[in-house]
């Protein structure tokens, strides 16, 4: 599981690649730390190359959202494949995020 952080046009973009499962979650949790200081920036979680997300991954996404909202930042999910969308739909989390 790889992550890459970039700042693109004032947006904080986090690229996810591979399987975000329980084993990968602790490292990813550290990798997404730069998103904490998001005041004045929107966040894009780029899932174009994300193959799988587990509950631990969902919790990381929810924590990013919980941190960003009070700061007025939007959290967008970009490029999510159909399997991942189904995970978000069946758990009821789709409408918490904005999808690009």
């Amino acid at each position, binding site marked *: 599981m790889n992550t890459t952080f970039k700042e693109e046009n004032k947006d904080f973009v986090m690229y996810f690649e591979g399987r975000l499962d329980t084993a990968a979650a602790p490292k990813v949790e550290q990798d997404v730390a730069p998103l904490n200081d998001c005041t004045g920036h929107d966040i894009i979680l780029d899932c174009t190359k994300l193959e799988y997300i*587990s*509950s631990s991954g*969902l*919790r990381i996404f*929810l924590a990013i959202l919980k941190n960003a909202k009070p700061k007025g930042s939007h959290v967008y999910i970009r490029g999510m494949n*159909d399997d991942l*969308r*189904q*995970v978000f*739909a*069946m*758990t*009821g*989390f*789709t*409408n*918490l995020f*904005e*999808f690009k």
Partner: protein
Amino acid sequence: MSNLSPHSEMLLSEFRELRPLLGQLSEGVYALLFSVLKEQNIELNAIEYRVKTEQSLKGKLERKGDKYQSLDNITDLVGLRIVTFYSDDVDKVAAIVKNLFDVDWQNSVDKRKLHQLTSFGYNSLHYVCRLKEGQRVVDCTKETATIPFEIQMRTALQHAWSAIEHDIGYKGSVKLPPEFRRQFSRLAGMLELADDEFSRLRNTMTEYRRQVETLVKSGQLRDVSLSTDSFNSYLNLHPFERLNQRIAAVNQAEIYPVSLMTFLPLLESFGMETLDDVQQFIDNYSDDAYQLALSQLAVTDLDILSESVGLLNLCLVYVLKHNGGIDGLCHVYDTINGKHPSNEMLAAAVLEQAQSLLLNNQK
């Protein structure tokens, strides 16, 4: 070159020395008012404070410097403004201010009472205050105790009136022709009426909410129309909790709290008119909603679910049972999640699952 008299120059020089203390006082009084008003749950449009600028004081002294024997006679060196949404709250704020500080009644003005019965104009309440004897305000030294400060209290509409009046220069040196004054008067009257109506509307809404809460608590759901307020009260009873817990038990999942208000337009689109309709919807479709959720979640190890999971599956089942087909299921996702090309894929997946559960067309 300064146009000030020697006496006014002396006052200005005293002001410069006093400025740091005035800054302390304005910040301390602001902090105290802010916390007390917050504690009292009074919704404010704005609360602001300032120390008079040297330029502004100079202007005042140029105009009427001889009137002031000492700086103590100038009561607005420190000014605070509290802008409420409702006219009722101006009185409430005034009572709190009266309680917190010593009010100098001789110099305080209730402009709301100054108008003739037949005239309209700027309404605002100005209290000139001092700290109470022995009162200590955060960051204030005891030298600030005798310095007066002015608190203006008004509604947002009164504030708008005042700002526009200032901008147009209604009180300027050029006397306005009667037809313009009449236009101002009419507008002021309209704003006063609007202020009263907003207050009245708030009271009516509060009463309505209380009645709805009582009906919901007593279980008289048939008498309660489905609306934002009533649905909100109904949600306080956690009507979907049982179904959510049943679904969560599939994977021993935790329930993540979310707002369910986004489902209201969907329930209305199903033709539900009362809370009783919603209750029947839960009673009639919970078993099937559980089966549908089970069929999706049992093959996963997802152990975190949104609080909306029960209601979402109820809506999906309702559509399936009313022959809504793929379009109906798409409508559910479009309403809850917003339109997105993948909603059709989600709808198709649910339809396929439902066929295996024999949910289709069986009301």
